[in-house]
């Protein structure tokens, strides 16, 4: 199958609020899949349901031909979905490289006895973790800040560091929640190049983003949510001209007026 992720009729309610309803979509291997929608449309809820932070009420995810139901967030990460957060959630009081090293946790083994006795296997693993972490910092472009505390990094660098930490878990699917938020145009260009590199190197990307220029220029396909429902899906060009999407973003009346103009 070329589908990496298949979502079927996913629903999530918070009390009386229907955050997600009947959301179905599929992400192909190697694509950059955009997820857009106005504020409160349910994008982040979809991320949280996908990564196991929330339990979904209905529906199913099939990831890499395996169901993702009932898995805890750490098990989802183990299966190969890594994410970043809308409000950056780095380990603030640890250095940049330590943040990435923690990302290697799920792909390494050493336990208590390894830590205490430091046998050759553990030492080799530690060295590999450290080497790989520096490589990833280099890859995302924050190698110079490797030993600075995460909280002392510039905002754009923190976003990149979060991506490096996620990549350290060797994900098949990298889920990014508004990675360009708060970046200026130059930084966004740099981010775009990074995302293209990541895709080229074989990782599929699911991207929530409000920067339409970025979304439209980089995403192979885009899913549009509004009030928790899917209102459109397709290539950037198709979605852009979908009247329902325009209405969701601009409000129905204004959209009509624009068309008249």
């Amino acid at each position: 199958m070329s589908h990496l992720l298949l979502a079927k009729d996913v629903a999530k309610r918070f009390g009386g609020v229907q955050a997600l309803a009947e959301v179905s979509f599929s992400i192909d291997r190697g694509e950059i899949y955009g997820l857009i929608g106005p504020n409160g449309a349910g994008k982040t809820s979809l991320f949280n349901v996908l990564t196991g932070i929330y339990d979904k009420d209905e529906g199913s995810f099939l990831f890499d031909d395996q169901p993702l139901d009932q898995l805890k967030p750490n098990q989802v990460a183990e299966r190969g979905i890594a994410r970043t957060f809308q409000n950056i959630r780095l380990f603030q009081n640890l250095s940049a490289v330590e943040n990435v090293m923690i990302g290697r946790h799920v792909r390494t083994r050493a336990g208590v006895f390894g830590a205490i006795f430091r046998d050759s296997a553990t030492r080799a693993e530690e060295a590999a973790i450290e080497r790989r972490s520096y490589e990833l910092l280099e890859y995302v472009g924050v190698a110079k800040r490797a030993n600075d505390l995460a909280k002392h990094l510039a905002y754009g660098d923190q976003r990149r560091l979060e991506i490096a930490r996620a990549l350290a878990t060797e994900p098949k699917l990298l889920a990014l929640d508004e990675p360009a938020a708060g970046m200026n145009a130059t930084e966004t260009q740099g981010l775009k190049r990074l995302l293209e590199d990541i895709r080229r190197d074989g990782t599929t990307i699911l991207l929530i983003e409000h920067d339409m220029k970025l979304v439209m220029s980089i995403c192979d396909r885009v899913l549009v949510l509004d009030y928790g429902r899917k209102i459109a899906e397709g290539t950037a060009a198709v979605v852009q001209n979908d009247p329902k999407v325009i209405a969701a973003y601009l409000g129905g009346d204004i959209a009509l007026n624009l068309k008249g103009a």
Partner: protein
Amino acid sequence: MSVAKAGDEPRTAGIPVKVWAGVALVAVALAVLPFVAAFAGQAWVRILNFAMIYVMLALGLNIVVGFAGLLDLGYIAFYAVGAYMYALLASPHFNVHLPFWAILPMGAALACIFGVLLGAPTLKLRGDYLAIVTLGFGEIIRIFLNNLNAPVNISNGPQGINLIDPFRLGSFNFARSEVVGGVYFSGPQKYYYILLLITIGVILVNVRLQNSRLGRAWEAIREDEIAAKAMGINTRNVKLLAFAMGASFGGIAGGIFSATQQFVSPESFGLFESVIVLAMVVLGGMGHIPGVILGAILLTLLPEVLRYTMEPLQNALFGRVILDAETIRLLVFGIALVAIMLYRPAGLWPSATRKRELEVARAPEGAE
């Protein structure tokens, strides 16, 4: 950025010698310390031994509070478990006399199990809520020990257990004074050396745990539990391991306490003890091993120093004793704690400079 670190330049060649010299110096100082302290009286050697027991306790609690960020107010319960384990297996109470090197690991293991017992139901709690539950746990253990003398007498209740065996290796008794190789060793002085060995071992294990995959996972949970989970850390297991490892050091310290005092009773394991150990961790610098060691030593020595200085001081100042030593000791102790927290809120010796920051000096383009 690394301009100020000029001193690091010759580290590959020059530093190791300095390091070895430093280690040798510290080793000599630690070796003669009990004899220096003996000039002030054997009581001071005992206080040094206590300081080391508290170092172990504080380091154990530091794993839970400092590394994993789980506020534990009942830590002393594990100390009690270790102490009673030793007391029951090496005293006339059950007429069982196992050697200390067998009981200490058993005590650590039992405390470890109790750590998991406390950790398992509290996995989803944090901060104040966790503190309340752990506080209750600590009290439960103490009250159990206080009442486990009927219908079957296990703990001997409030009277405690007496005549506990000291450490013995063959015919070598750590509690008895004797002349070894022409040098007179008192009991506390003998204990000092074995405690020093155990303490160094505990410190090494702690350092290694911190700089490991597991140590990083603990710190990740402390920093952001949700992000830690999303990065694939099994927070349940890792938290349980923190409780278990922390508790096992408490268990070891408890066994040693039992042997050096040769008497235990539930009174020694009250809430105040938990608070003192927590104060050592917080005051020294949470999560920073050298800071925690410093905190433990200072908070053990300070009350004792005050005990011996307050009366002479009052006599000198006022010509008579106005407040008795016991009262003023706790008062000054409290004021000192408040002052430290006001002026050094991160602790006396926080982990401001991380080890890896030194390595910037090695990579030329590491600094901008």
